[in-house]
């Protein structure tokens, strides 16, 4: 059960509308992605909280449909 990169991006932006999302399909099989998410909403949050916000946006898909999403979060400069 793979997910499209576009679908992942849309879900993240659904929760974090200002997010700049860059997604790479690491193996080209729709199962191993790396995502970099930049959002003002991360300001003042710990890294664990930032990642939790992204996971929340993915509504349970992470660890289920999405086996591997290497995640990096940052705040816009």
């Amino acid at each position, binding site marked *: 059960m793979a997910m499209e990169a576009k679908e992942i991006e849309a879900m993240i932006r659904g929760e974090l509308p200002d997010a700049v999302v860059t997604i790479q399909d690491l193996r080209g099989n729709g199962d191993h992605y790396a995502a970099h998410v930049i959002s003002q909403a991360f300001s003042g949050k710990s*890294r664990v909280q930032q990642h939790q916000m992204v*996971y929340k946006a993915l509504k349970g898909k992470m660890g289920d449909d999405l086996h591997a999403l290497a995640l990096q979060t940052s705040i816009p400069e």
Partner: protein
Amino acid sequence: MTNPVFTRIEDDIQKSDIVLYMKGSPMFPQCGFSATVVEVLNHFNVDFEAFDVLQDPALRDGIKSYSEWPTIPQLYVKGEFVGGCDIIREMAANGEMSGLFEQNNIQPKA
């Protein structure tokens, strides 16, 4: 605190300075992400307690709700959730991990 597994988790993460919930064992990790975190800990040459969630479905689900973190591995230092594979890798690379160990007075194994 409705989930009985939470009590066990809280006990375990207090008992040892560094606790890793992983798939497989440190000698035989069953997943690349778990293997990466074991490598990082071995690199710092610190003692840690590992729990194999594949041996224990209640723990596998319990740990995810405990930390509100959807994936395994999960690393705890002094009872605090530090992160999963991505965060650990980033912290090892940028020096935060050695800072965290120093701060908590965690020494390399003799």
